[in-house]
């Protein structure tokens, strides 16, 4: 199974885009974000904690996410991240960019 060491290494900004997408459904704590990405990608994309948290904090600093302390599903105190208006906008731009990029890459790779 292929794992991604640091998503930033593959294509810069990819991890951030994935995080934005993960949070699109509603506020989540870091562990759930990692799990969701991993699960949704069918274990292809494994998000390392060493990359995830710096990315989350960086995005919080930049105002894409806002954080709030809440109670997790198993009654623990956890830090929940949520998209801000800025985050929503960023997700929109990023997904359009990604769609363009991936189809372009696909075109190139499928060329005979």
């Amino acid at each position, binding site marked *: 199974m292929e794992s991604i060491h640091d998503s930033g290494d593959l294509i810069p900004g990819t991890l951030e885009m994935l995080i934005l997408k993960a949070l699109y459904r509603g506020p989540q704590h870091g562990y759930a974000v990692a799990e969701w990405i991993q699960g949704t990608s069918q274990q292809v994309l494994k998000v*390392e904690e060493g990359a995830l948290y710096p990315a989350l904090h960086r995005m919080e*600093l930049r105002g894409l996410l806002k954080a709030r302390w809440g109670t997790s599903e198993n009654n623990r105190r*956890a830090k929940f991240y949520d998209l801000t208006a800025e985050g929503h906008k960023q997700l929109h731009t990023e997904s359009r960019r990604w769609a363009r990029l991936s189809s372009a890459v696909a075109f190139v790779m499928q060329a005979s």
Partner: protein
Amino acid sequence: MKQQWHELMLRSRAIFVKRRMEKEMAEELAFHQAMLKEKLVRQGASHEEAERTARLRFGDGRRWHERLRELWQFRWLENLRRDLKYSLRVLRKSPGFTCVAILTLALGVGANTTVFSIINGLLLRPLPVPESDRLVVLGIAQDQPNPSYSFPEPLFRALESRHEAFSSVFASFSTEADVKADTGTERARLQMVSGDFFSGLEVAPLMGRVLTRADDSKGGSPAGFAAVISDSFWQRWFNRASNVVGQKIRVDNTVFTVVGVMPKRFMGVNPLERPEIFVPLAAEPAMDGAQNLTTAGLHAWWLNTMARLQPGVSPAQANAQVEAASQSILRERAPDANWLSKREGEHFHFVAEPGSAGFTYIRLIFRKPLVAVFAMCGGVLLLACLNLASLLMARGAARQKELATKLSMGATRGRLIQQLLLESLLISLAGTAAGLAVAPAIGESLSALLLGGQTEINIDTRLDLRVFAFAALVSLAATLLVGLVPALQATSSGLNEQMKQGQHTTQAQERNRMLPRVMMAFEVALALMLVVGAGLLTSSLVKLYRSGAGFDPRGLESIAISMDHQALRGEALMQFYRQVGEELARQPGVKAVSWQWVVPLAHMTWDESFYAPGGKEEDIHENSIAPDYFKTMRLPMFGGRDFRWNDRAASGQKIIINQAAANLLLPGRNPLGQVLSKKDKGKVIPYEIVGVVGDAKYEDIRQAAPPTIYHPMTQADAEQPPSFNAVVRLEGGSGELASAARAIVQKINPEIPAPKISSMETMVDESLSAERTMALLSGFFALCALMVTAIGLYGTLAYATARRTAEIGIRMALGAKRMQVARMVFAQNSAVALAGSAAGLACALLGSKLLSSFLYGTSVRDPWIFAGAIVVLALIASAASLLPALRAARIEPVRAIRCE
């Protein structure tokens, strides 16, 4: 843009909630780990396995924190904090360097600023009155380098009534007076002021009213004379009684009604004087009796005159206006054509100068010295900066290996420079703070020295913060700039080479080491100049004191007895003086007593034209004296006889002349028995010379003793005012003389006002106050300069020597003797001191000409002073070099080489 702003905000907030953030980060990670472990356990792993896997995945928790923390902080701030810690450690590790640098700055910035502040407070600070920039000081220019600032009453009144450029013209005269109470008499600082004084200064009273023009009219207002008192006098005399207005005070035997109290911050026109009682000028004749300055008219030059400019008039325009008005005022007030033509011959005209700082007699004395003092201030500041520069450079050179190591370990150039600059900054901050700490003590002791116990003068010794800020900024800039040099040098290319070579001298380093030494030489030169300057001024002062007045002022007291209001004249008056003199002579400690009409050095002049047979008319100073005068004054008698009490008018006019008069009027002739003549109202009056005496100074101790004729007081004509001054030669204190004189006079006639006693020694001191201050200040600066230079010489040599430890070790291992090593190190500073002294000598020779106008009887190239200054500097340099030389001699070769 928006995102960056958001970042900035959150990061700034993070500075304040740092603790909470750290805790939350840890909690967040712990949560993640716990969730992970739960999942693993759910998937069937044992607790231990889950624990291990989680640990493996997360690694060291601290690194995690570090990464997150970095995100949240300002990187530069964090770097700054680290650099600060590091710099403090570095500075603590070299306490010698740190102390030397801080001391230099404390001296250069602190001491220097203090002096500047005092002078500034004395001379430059504006008066605390509204729109002080519209005040001007009026003066009288004649054929002299400086205008005079004393006006006779008639000329002032003429100016007062004219209003072209000024909204008001006002005059004041400061003196001391006796204030009589039931319990006794006290002295108080008195200021006689003209009617527009208070309105011109635009100050409001604390209570009551100020003096007005109505008060300044003959005899005062219908209710008698009015007076305004200061806040301090209100406190001292009336204990702040609220009903003070309307109370009577008796000042110099004249009754005044207190009409107002001035607020505390009001200090009159002279920041140094702070008068306690203000009385109208018109009260002067009543207070001073028949010999008063007002009636003396154009013969008494006593009033300090200021004016307030009309709105929109510049001081220059006002100056032009008063100059233009001079002629008509002179003509209007001149008593006779002779007087007028004499004034016109001297190009007499009025001047107006900016006077926002008020009227300070000291400022007038200091007009030129001030520039010199500022130059000295600048010199010391420059010295301090140079010192720091050379120290820092020596240190920078010594640290090149350390810097190179850091660079090779991956430090960026920028960070390294930042760190070095921070070190410099810390030094200058600490030095400035130390300067601030020592400033008040220096200020107080210096002003105490300056005033020499004159309690009636107050100097504001508060540090002028602007000046301090300036000095601090200069030193800061210097430190930073100089700190930058080693930083840049050290981080320039080719450093790896240096690291490899370690302490071994390379050419580049040799050059680097030259610069601090050149700077030190420059410093020595500067210090030498300051020492020479101080030496010249001090020697001039000593010569002034030594050349002195001609008479011996030590133990000489002058007692003024006011007889103007008494009926005694002629024979009876002489009898009175003779009797008082005899009584005074019987007092304990009194060696001799005589009388004089004009008190020398009191800036009073009596002169007329005399001529010898066949000679031309010459202006000769005169005085009227009693027998034993020359013995009392300790003036040598070169020939002839002293006056006698029975030298009467009937026996023909007798005179005694001084050597200067003999040389002028009767060159090469024996003056004894010769006759001098004076033309008076068409008659020729002959005077027979019966004696020749030594020269004595008359008006001013700086001026040569003028040709002088002494008349016996027994031959005084009826027009001469009858108040004489006793001169008393004392051995021992003058403690009881004042009360004794009072008792003697009172016994003869209780109507006679209490005599005023003043010490001639004090008068000489006061007349030399500018020279004393200059000598004192220059001495202080020279001392500072010497200390700074010594510190610098020691510091740079100590550094240079420390760097050469290994080299010296090798030398010694190869057989160099300890003495040789010590001599080698010592020789380094000798070369610096020698070069500096040579340069300083050259500059001092050229520059000392600037001092010539301050010097009395001292050549600007006095070889003794130059030699002395060089010896002093040589001693200082030797002392500063001795310690490093000895330390070098004590180096243990084995250990020194192993260090490498």
